[in-house]
């Protein structure tokens, strides 16, 4: 465990993991209440990764996210209220209610979108970072994906392009042990780090439950990448505390036993980081987070839903108006 002067920089990381934790819990409540349609893929248990990675990025650095993306979006600096409004399908949401949980994006803070297709975003982020540098910037990028994604050829093509063209991308694999119900040991031939190394990409295994360990590993990777060292991969070992998707709250799928889940939940990133704060500081942050989220929920639920007449607004950036489906 990396040591920090307690209460000095432990606070911001704690705030982020706590914010994500409580955001997800509120979001699950809103799924149950029918305010979030379609359910969500909860990020519970993996908060240290989003928090640690984004703490090592600059505001103008870029990320892409996944179907399990709320943590990344919050950690990179999107407004929790507009994020929640997005999940509730409101016009005030980050995407105007057009994207929802799996497509939340905020280009103003470098969030180039969550992506619902496993393995797709790696090359997108690589191209985006490459372009930023072409245009004179010195941004780096981080792209999140799961242990399931490393089996997608298109992700490996992203490794290849980033390595070949020395694009400063940090590939962040969140190995939570399962792709939906598929255990990583039955799905991944070889190793995850080995897949990056095959392309000449340095790769390390990181404790994905410890926000500071993730942050420190990311810093190293980011510094190297920004200095021209090309891409890096971090395999963050973690555990998904809750369901693959909230539909599992209703339909029991039998793939992890109770002992394993209990073991997995025993290393809680919120507790790990919380223990680095003095109790008063922690309580103050907790209270502040509750206030932020209370306001976020209120904002989201009070916001208008978009007008169905505008259902195809933004379909074409050029303004082309599509022909309707009936006339």
């Amino acid at each position: 465990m990396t040591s920090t002067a307690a209460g000095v920089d432990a606070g911001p990381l704690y705030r982020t993991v706590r914010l994500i934790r409580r955001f997800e819990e509120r979001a699950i409540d809103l799924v149950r209440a029918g305010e979030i349609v379609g359910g969500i893929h909860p990020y519970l248990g993996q908060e240290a990764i989003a928090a640690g990675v984004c703490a090592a990025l600059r505001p103008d650095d870029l990320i892409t996210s996944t179907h399990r993306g709320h943590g990344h979006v919050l950690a990179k600096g999107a407004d929790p209220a507009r994020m929640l409004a997005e999940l509730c399908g409101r016009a005030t949401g980050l995407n105007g209610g057009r994207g929802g949980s799996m497509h939340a994006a905020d280009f103003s803070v470098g969030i180039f979108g969550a992506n619902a297709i496993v393995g797709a975003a790696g090359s997108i982020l690589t191209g985006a970072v490459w372009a930023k540098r072409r245009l004179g910037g010195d941004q780096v990028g981080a792209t999140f994906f799961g242990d399931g994604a490393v089996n997608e050829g298109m992700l490996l093509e992203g490794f290849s392009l980033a390595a070949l063209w020395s694009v400063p991308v940090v590939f962040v694999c969140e190995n939570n042990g399962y792709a939906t119900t598929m255990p990583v040991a039955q799905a991944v031939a070889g190793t995850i780090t080995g897949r990056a190394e095959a392309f000449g990409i340095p790769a390390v295994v990181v404790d994905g439950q410890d926000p500071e360990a993730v942050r420190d590993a990311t810093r190293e990777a980011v510094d190297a990448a920004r200095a021209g060292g090309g891409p890096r991969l971090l395999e963050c070992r973690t555990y998904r505390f809750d369901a693959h998707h909230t539909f599992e709250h209703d339909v029991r799928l039998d793939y992890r036993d109770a002992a394993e889940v209990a073991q997995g939940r025993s290393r809680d990133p919120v507790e790990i980081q919380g223990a680095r704060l003095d109790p008063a500081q922690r309580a103050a942050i907790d209270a502040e987070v509750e206030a932020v989220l209370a306001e976020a929920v209120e904002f989201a639920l009070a916001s208008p839903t978009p007008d169905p007449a505008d259902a195809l607004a933004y379909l074409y950036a050029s303004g082309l108006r599509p022909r309707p489906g009936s006339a």
Partner: protein
Amino acid sequence: MPRLSYLKALNRALGDELARDPSVVVLGEDIRVAASNLTAGLLKKYGPERIIDTPLAEQGFTNFATGAALAGLRPVIEFQIPSLLFLVFEQIANQAHKFSLMTGGQARVPVTYVVTGSGSRSGWAGQHSDHPYGLLAHVGVKTLVPATPADAYGLLLSAVRDDDPVVLFAPAGALGVRADVDPTELAAVPIGVGTLRRPGDDVTVVAVGHLVHDALAVAEELADQVSVEVFDPRTLYPFDIDGLLASVGRTGRLVVVDDSNRSCGIGAEIIASVVERVALAAPPRRVTRPDGAVLPFAAALDRAVQPGREQLTAAIQLVMKG
């Protein structure tokens, strides 16, 4: 008679084919635990040698299934989401579909692809809500979209037994449909044969998949104004044009309702195929998704982009005037 759900019918068909033919194997994501329920109970009965969970490598395992078919098996693949067909389009359209002709008849590729829950699932948003059956029909891969439990059963049976690649779309909007079915009457439904769901005199409505039920509801609603015949093609490719012409030849009017994008969709094909052959009493109409549709997340927007009963009603009324 016992009630049978659409999803259960698919599950039963798969189980029956696994029992009947040892060369049938099932591949897909999360099929051991039966996340979608398509494969419920099958792991226990047929074991992990025939109910095979794949890693997330859709292109790889689609080609793998093609190879297995070339070597004598009859793989069935489940895709969890419709856009995975985009991802494996090369593997289906350019590999599986082409082997027979390219090899001069040396090879056959009996693979069935099942999309459990195609179209919108409400809230799954832009990348999970497509209905790309028209793409398969265009390249010429057999394309089935059953509307009822009995057809779901019977068409999946035929698909597995067919010697060519076949894609079966199970629309999310149909998965919950239940019907009274005599289990002893469940049987293979031939590929390429449509069926009249409701007789009528004034206008033929062709409805695809779950929209068959909407079309029937609209027909009832309008019953005192107009006599609507509802034709369910069941198979989009090959299309039962003779069956449809028999209906349109009588009614002289045509409306197609289909939950896919308008341009180059199955609606266009149906209209073109009809007007090439018979003169209509009024211009035909399509009720579809808009051109290039991407389903927005917010519930009301998602619904607004899909064809519904109101638009179908309006189209029928228009055709009756025209």
